[in-house]
């Protein structure tokens, strides 16, 4: 902090946009959002440990339009963070960095993988919520 005269790296607008910029930003944002989701999990567990009234309040929040919107967002945040995290671990192991995979013009697999991560997380989120709504309509009948 004391040394302020150091050279600075170029700022964002210098770089050509790549999908891994979106992945990196979304990974942080989804991580922050999932920390809040952890608090919701804590609320649910504590409510279940307390009494039926506390659980009803929790269930009412989760079943409200705002609660459902939050839960859908949390589902996607969890599944994106999970899929992107698997890609992180894969690359942490040193895989996926070959010249052919890096070259966007020849073999776009390095960046294509980013789009695959985003697509898979969205598809899985849709599947989870199709299950939720199918059960809701089946259970009510």
């Amino acid at each position, binding site marked *: 902090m004391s040394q302020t005269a150091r050279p600075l790296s170029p700022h964002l607008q210098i770089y050509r946009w790549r999908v891994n910029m979106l992945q990196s930003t979304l990974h942080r944002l989804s*991580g922050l959002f999932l920390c809040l989701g952890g608090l919701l999990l804590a609320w649910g567990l504590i409510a279940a440990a307390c009494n039926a009234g506390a*659980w009803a309040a929790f269930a009412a929040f989760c079943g409200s339009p705002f609660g459902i919107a939050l839960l859908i967002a949390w589902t996607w945040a969890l599944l994106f963070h999970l899929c992107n*995290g698997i890609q992180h671990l894969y690359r942490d192991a040193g895989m996926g960095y070959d010249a052919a995979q890096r070259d966007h013009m020849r073999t776009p697999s390095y960046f294509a993988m980013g789009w695959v991560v985003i697509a898979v997380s969205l598809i899985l989120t849709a599947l989870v919520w199709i299950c939720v709504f199918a059960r809701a309509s089946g259970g009510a009948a």
Partner: protein
Amino acid sequence: MSAIGENGLRNPLKTARSYGSAQSGVHHWWVQRVTAVALIPLGLWFIWLALGLAHADFDTARAVIGQPVHAVLLIALVVALFWHGALGLQVVIEDYVHTRWKEIALQLAVRFGAFIAAVACILAIARIALTR
């Protein structure tokens, strides 16, 4: 080797004055990865469990959470989740909060908050599993 010493060709002062490695930086990175690997199966399992708990009433929810396998995995999930979350928030604070007292206050708040939340969750799960 004995002439060069443990620090190689470096003067020990270089390390002492905080320009060298503290030899523990990899620990944060490693624990973040260990908890991440744990959270892959636990996260997928939790989504499945949560799907079963959607629309559940109080007694059903307690019965599901209180099953021994579910209780054990939930405790594992809670520990990995809040640990991983605290490590992630720590890095975000290090990156974006540059006022020293705010940074320390936030780091302490994250650590204490994550710890308290994890302990509260574990106690809640244990209470549900043990009082039926």
